[in-house]
């Protein structure tokens, strides 16, 4: 369907009312957004959300177009505008005063600067390199699952998803174990800064958490400066960037702190969210759980299962861009300096690309087209690691747990109030242990 036919598709009165009054500031919509996404895609695909002050790009095709034009749609301006929006000066002051400095995210930048930083990160995350990590990650997963499966019940988010992803990234970065709770709090605090749902008090509290995080990381970086090890902190502290003219540069201190912070947070919260979503699906769609169980030894099925999970419930709901000139997306013209949110949750639900989008269908012919990892030059750099973690987890869970059921009513499930991700806060489940 071309954009014109789609834009003219008539909405019912209720749908028109939802389009007129809906906002991603609304916690009820954030928790259950699919109807709102759908009316935007059909009625106003590039929709100005007045309460957020952002343009919501909701169709798959438009999201892809924006992603492939990183100079018109600046991540640097978009991301850093979204951060602590409305309270930025105070936020940055707190970090400078109490957190060792305000360090803009080097990876949240625009080409050509971005290209150099990005190259540095890419080599650590190729699918082939990640494959080598798999045996160790399987050990971590099994170790954690063995500690809960005997009980027949667990909070699948707090007891499994969150500690698991933290243990993996802690090991990759070379941090010590046992800090799961702290790292979880830090992750929430960093994500909250782009979540648009903080009041001033929460912003200050979250900023202080980030100060704490930065002091911790800076301490680790200093250790690695004199005593490099086989870990990612050492890699970044000692990284050399090859420039186009053949010269070699090192990262500044500010860049290095921001990259290590990004590594710790970006792959952690989001992967945990994906695993929480997987538990929700396994608990509420017995057919999907059965199919996973029946195909647990089939690598192709597992790979596609993970991809469909990421399509149907993308952990990252929406990320920012800012226009650097007047530009038209679809039929909507945005001025220069407009804040844009690419609503991945909606792009993955776009029925013109993924028929029956709420069906969990591992056999989709275009399964790789989902935008859960974004796309273009800012596509998630840790995507292979995320996929592998989720895949190992899916396999080891279904080997050990049968009859997974929610231990709370679906309407009692709370989602983290944030525009940035769609994350289940806590998901108690019951299950029967299988002999693995």
């Amino acid at each position, binding site marked *: 369907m071309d954009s014109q036919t789609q834009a003219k598709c008539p909405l019912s009165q209720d749908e028109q009312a939802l389009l007129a009054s809906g906002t991603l500031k609304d916690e009820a919509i954030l928790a259950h957004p699919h109807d709102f996404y759908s009316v935007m895609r059909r009625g106003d695909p590039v929709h100005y959300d007045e309460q957020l002050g952002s343009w919501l790009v909701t169709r798959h095709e438009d999201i892809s177009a924006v992603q*492939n034009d990183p100079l018109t749609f600046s991540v640097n301006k978009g991301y850093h505008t979204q951060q602590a929006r409305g309270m930025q000066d105070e936020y940055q002051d707190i970090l400078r005063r109490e957190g060792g400095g305000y360090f803009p995210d080097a990876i949240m930048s625009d080409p050509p600067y971005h290209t150099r930083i*990005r*190259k540095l990160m*890419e080599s650590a*995350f*190729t*699918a*082939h390199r990640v*494959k080598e990590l798999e045996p160790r990650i399987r050990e971590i997963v099994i170790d954690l699952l063995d500690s809960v499966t005997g009980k027949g019940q667990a909070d699948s988010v707090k007891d499994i998803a969150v500690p698991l992803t933290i243990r993996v990234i802690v090991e990759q970065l070379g941090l010590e174990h046992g800090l799961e709770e702290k790292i979880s709090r830090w992750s929430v605090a960093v994500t909250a800064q782009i979540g648009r749902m903080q009041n001033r008090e929460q912003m200050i509290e979250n900023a202080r958490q980030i100060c704490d995080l930065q002091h911790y990381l800076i301490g680790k970086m200093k250790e690695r400066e004199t005593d490099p090890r086989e870990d990612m902190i050492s890699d970044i502290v000692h990284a050399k960037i090859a420039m186009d003219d053949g010269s070699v540069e090192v990262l500044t201190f500010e860049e290095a702190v921001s990259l290590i912070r990004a590594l710790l947070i970006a792959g952690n919260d989001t992967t945990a969210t994906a695993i929480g979503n997987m538990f929700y699906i396994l608990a509420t769609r017995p057919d999907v759980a059965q199919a996973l169980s029946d195909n647990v030894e089939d*690598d*192709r099925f597992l*790979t*596609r299962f993970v*991809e469909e999970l990421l399509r149907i419930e993308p952990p990252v709901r929406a990320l920012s861009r800012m226009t650097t000139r007047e530009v038209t997306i679809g039929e909507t013209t945005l001025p220069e300096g407009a804040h844009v949110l690419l609503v991945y949750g909606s792009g993955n639900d776009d029925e013109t690309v993924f028929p029956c989008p709420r069906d969990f269908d591992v056999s989709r*012919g*275009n*399964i*790789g*087209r989902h935008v859960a*990892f974004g*796309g*273009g*030059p800012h*596509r998630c*750099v840790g*995507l*292979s690691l995320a*996929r592998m973690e989720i895949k190992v987890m899916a396999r080891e869970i279904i080997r050990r747990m049968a009859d997974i059921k929610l231990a709370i009513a679906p309407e009692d499930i709370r989602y983290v109030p944030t525009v940035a991700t769609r994350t289940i806060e806590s998901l108690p489940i019951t299950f029967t242990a299988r002999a693995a």
Partner: protein
Amino acid sequence: MGNLTVTMTDVNGVTRVIDNAEPGLSLMELAKANDVAGIMGDCGGGCACATCHVYVDAAWWDRVGAPDDIEASMLDMAENVQPRSRLGCQIKLSAELDGITVTVAP
């Protein structure tokens, strides 16, 4: 600058002959450096996004060879896969591939 020759037909059907390709570069890197339409290389050559999907010309298939397991599983999720599909990032240019001909997948 190298001296290998690579012929690429881009996603719009335009055929380009690149005659100064450097050994060691991947087809994806070469295509990006020459702005070959349809090759994005989003993941930077990590065999993780399938945005550098190409069809290898029949005459070159034996020398290029089949994808390994990791690449095959990535290709499995791409669209328009054909028997001689490969990811450009996983094909490293060498003297043996001097003259290779590929077509960018839609």
